[in-house]
């Protein structure tokens, strides 16, 4: 009887360890994939917005404002988010979004690339860091206004 009880305890300990590690692994991969999927969606939305947004290249400050609007679109789903807006992906900030235009020979933007610079997913049991991905490159199809200024 005592032996059976001991066996049961041992079996429970072994199976619990296996179950917990399986469940932990399931959670960490499931959650990480979920966050990555959200990042792909956010980057896709930002890329489409960046492709169609007017490029105002009046000064370096204007270009920085354009980048800020695109970063906000990725992070908040809104180029001009309200005070205290919640990010589209938990813990994602506009600073973690990279925006870069590729210019053609005439100096006009031809492509715009939007990507995640670095983002760490905290899946409780383990952390995963994504650098440079997800990323997209869209053709620039917006209005090119080199002399205009951002508001």
């Amino acid at each position: 009887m005592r032996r059976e009880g001991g066996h049961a305890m041992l079996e429970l300990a072994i199976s619990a360890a296996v179950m917990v590690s399986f469940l932990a692994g399931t959670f960490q991969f499931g959650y990480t994939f979920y966050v990555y999927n959200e990042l792909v969606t956010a980057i896709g939305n930002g890329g489409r917005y960046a492709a169609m947004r007017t490029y105002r290249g009046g000064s370096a400050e204007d270009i920085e404002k354009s980048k800020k609007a695109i970063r906000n679109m990725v992070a908040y789903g809104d180029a001009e988010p309200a005070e205290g807006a919640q990010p589209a992906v938990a813990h994602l900030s506009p600073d973690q979004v990279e925006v870069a235009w590729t210019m053609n020979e005439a100096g006009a933007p031809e492509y715009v690339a939007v990507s995640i610079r670095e983002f760490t997913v905290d899946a409780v049991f383990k952390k995963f860091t994504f650098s440079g991905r997800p990323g997209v490159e869209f053709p620039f199809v917006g209005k090119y206004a080199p002399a205009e200024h951002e508001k």
Partner: protein
Amino acid sequence: MKSSRRRGFVLIAMSIAMLLMLAAIGLAFDLGRVYIARNEAQVFTDAAAMAAAAKLDGTAGGIEKARQAVARVPMRWNLGTKEFTGVVVEFSADGANWDQNPRDAGATMARVTAPLNEVEIVFLRAVGGPATFTVPAHAVAVSNPVRLTE
């Protein structure tokens, strides 16, 4: 006799528990990857269709440039690790008749399809799921001004 019966029961219970566990892991791991691949493919086809439509200018040269523009779109799938293959680019002037090599160069619409994104299924396969799951995506863009319509 009683002991061997109990052992048999534990074996069955463990087998069922393992199957359920594999199914749960499969839902999280395999379906998670499937959804990501679908999303990546959709964003890729959106960008590729816009890139193609941006090159359409009513000439045969424009059609060729559109194909080249799609080929140079650098995006990847499977968590950004695999290149898109078998990408189909079609053109249309009316949105009803699509052709990869249109005789009439006056196409104003481009449709890009990424049909071969096969996600390898790891865990769900053990509980009767398929070995691979294909997640195709397509997008349509019109030119002048370039915008996505589908």
